[in-house]
């Protein structure tokens, strides 16, 4: 591809100040503490693609998502969408135009809809804010269309969110995201709070919509099977870093980073092949004081001296000394 990718994320970083309050710091002589939630993450997403981020709790997936949509300012790094940088604060109008094209779907369908608003008003809010269509009748029409598009009934507009089940609420959230004619939708664990059968409905809906409307997704999940089902490309995160980026299916057939292998190994085996597990070791370390060098080294079966000192760079989609030095044969 010669033109710039649709979404371009470069060296994104986010540091949170997690120090105790000032008074406590003085009294207890405690130092300031910082947490590197996201530490130099770069990736591209092509138009119409689904790029997925996987990783365990606390690995920084949501923080990346919030920075990409502009809910959270990055400490460093850039996000550009269709060549326009999100960080250029100078043109507010330009940003508003950009905003229209990016929307987000959240994990908790119970908290993502204002409980005191009727569904119609919730979906109409972006339409009004971005002036997608003018006039009450037209807005009403559009809301009805959107509800139908996500598999609900136009009459559902006059109900309150609590009258719907979790899956139906997630449909409403999708309708709201589509209301501004968004092209790029960031989905932060959109089905984690749902039952599998409802999850299947939502995932199918998301794929149908992608086909029909040419949507681009940044899809975040900790469920590897879901990610495999949805993604064209996948990034694996560990403690704020991307440790591996690879094409969808390839990640599963040929995982390269030791952490990716461990994650795959940990997934319960539904097919009951009776495969022996290597036994997963350890837990994610405290992110405030991550291990030096490669942050995965305390849990890594392939660890060697260099890992404890030197942070591995991403080379050819993998951030691991052992892989880059060719110490491991591809599985």
């Amino acid at each position, binding site marked *: 591809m010669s033109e710039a990718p649709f979404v371009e994320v470069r060296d994104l970083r986010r540091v949170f100040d997690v120090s105790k309050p000032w008074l406590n710091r003085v009294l207890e002589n405690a130092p300031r503490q910082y947490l590197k939630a996201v530490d130099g993450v770069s990736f591209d997403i092509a138009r119409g693609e689904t790029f997925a981020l996987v990783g365990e709790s606390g690995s920084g997936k949501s923080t990346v998502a*919030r920075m990409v*949509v*502009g*809910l959270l300012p990055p400490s460093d790094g850039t996000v550009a969408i269709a060549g326009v940088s999100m960080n250029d604060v100078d043109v507010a109008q330009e*940003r*508003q135009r950009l*905003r229209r094209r*990016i*929307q*987000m779907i*959240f*994990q*908790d369908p119970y*908290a*993502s*809809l*204002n*409980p*005191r608003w009727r569904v119609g008003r919730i979906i109409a*809010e*972006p339409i009004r*804010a*971005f002036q997608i269509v003018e006039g009450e009748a037209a807005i009403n029409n559009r809301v009805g269309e959107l509800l139908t598009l*996500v*598999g*609900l*009934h136009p*009459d*559902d507009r*006059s*109900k309150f969110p*609590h*009258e*719907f*089940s979790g*899956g*139906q609420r997630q*449909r409403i*959230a999708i309708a*709201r995201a589509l209301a*501004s004619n968004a092209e790029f939708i960031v989905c932060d664990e959109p089905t984690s709070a749902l039952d599998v059968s409802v999850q299947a*409905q939502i995932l*199918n*809906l998301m794929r*149908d919509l992608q086909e029909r409307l040419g949507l681009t997704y940044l899809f975040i999940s900790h469920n590897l099977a879901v990610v495999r089902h949805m993604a064209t490309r996948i990034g694996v995160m560990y403690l704020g870093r991307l440790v591996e980026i690879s094409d969808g299916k390839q990640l599963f057939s040929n995982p390269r980073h030791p952490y990716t292998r461990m994650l795959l190994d940990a997934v319960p085996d539904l097919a009951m092949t009776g495969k022996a597990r290597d036994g997963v070791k350890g837990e994610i370390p405290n992110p405030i004081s991550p291990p030096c060098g490669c942050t995965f080294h305390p849990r890594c079966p392939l660890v060697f001296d260099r890992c404890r000192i030197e942070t591995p760079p991403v080379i050819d989609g993998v951030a691991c000394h052992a892989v880059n030095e060719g110490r491991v044969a591809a599985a």
Partner: protein
Amino acid sequence: MSSTPLPTPRSQGRLARLWDSDLAFSFRSSPVTVAATLLALLLVLAAVAAPLIAPYDPFDPASLDLSDGFSRPMEPNEITGKVFWLGSDAQGRDIFSAILYGSRVSLLVGAASVLFSLVIGVGLGLVAGYVGGRTEALIMRVADVQLSFPAILVALLVFGVARGLIPPALQEQMTLLVLVVAIGLSNWAQYARTVRGSTLVEKNKVYVDAARLIGLKAWPVMLKHVLPNVAGPVLVIATINLALAVIEEATLSFLGVGMPPTQPSLGTLIRFGQQYLFSGEWWILLFPSLVLVLLALSINLFGDWLRDALNPKLR
């Protein structure tokens, strides 16, 4: 992609739905609350309609007759033979009428001061919760200091300051306003605390993020999204505070820093009545006190029920 729409009865009218709601049901099934609410409504209505109901105008000097003084309740006056239901005071004023007019003043001061503290408290609480940081710290420290003083002390202080600032000629006319401000200022902190707490909870819910995503600025988000969701607890406090404000006003008036004798509130009436407690004219004190207690109690009972009913979560 079909999904069966949930069956919700929607053909009923608004009133029917309200009657059928869980809130209305919980109300109906608590006889104490129903009784208290009816009593409160009765007292409020009587106060509002005082000029229509009261048999006498207790503040029309022309209609007062000293020989009517100290009539016993329900007994004809020894000299004039007039009957005062709840008796009369030294000037021959009808206690019943005085109470009607008095509750009017009390309720007016109470309601206005609640509104005043509500606006200040909710505003500051929202700002503190939403903005955070130093603004929050400042507002909440002031609220803490305020809460550590008894409300009546704060009110006395404000009242004293106002006295010093307002020219004596205007003082009597402005008393009502000063009272409202004094009581209002002594009660805002509670609202601020509650609203800040709820705002902190609500602003972290993702529907607020969703609103920010379409480019809404802080104020619209606060007013359109956060405020309606923190309204429940505020309503509860306001109701209970109305009872407290009425008592606070009575206390101030009783202490002699409240409503003047020309425009007496229940508290002023109680102050007058207290002088006759030991000379046998018990009715001058008893009836205004009783009304004050009933008024405060009934409003408070309603507020208590409201708190419990809204508490677990309005489904």
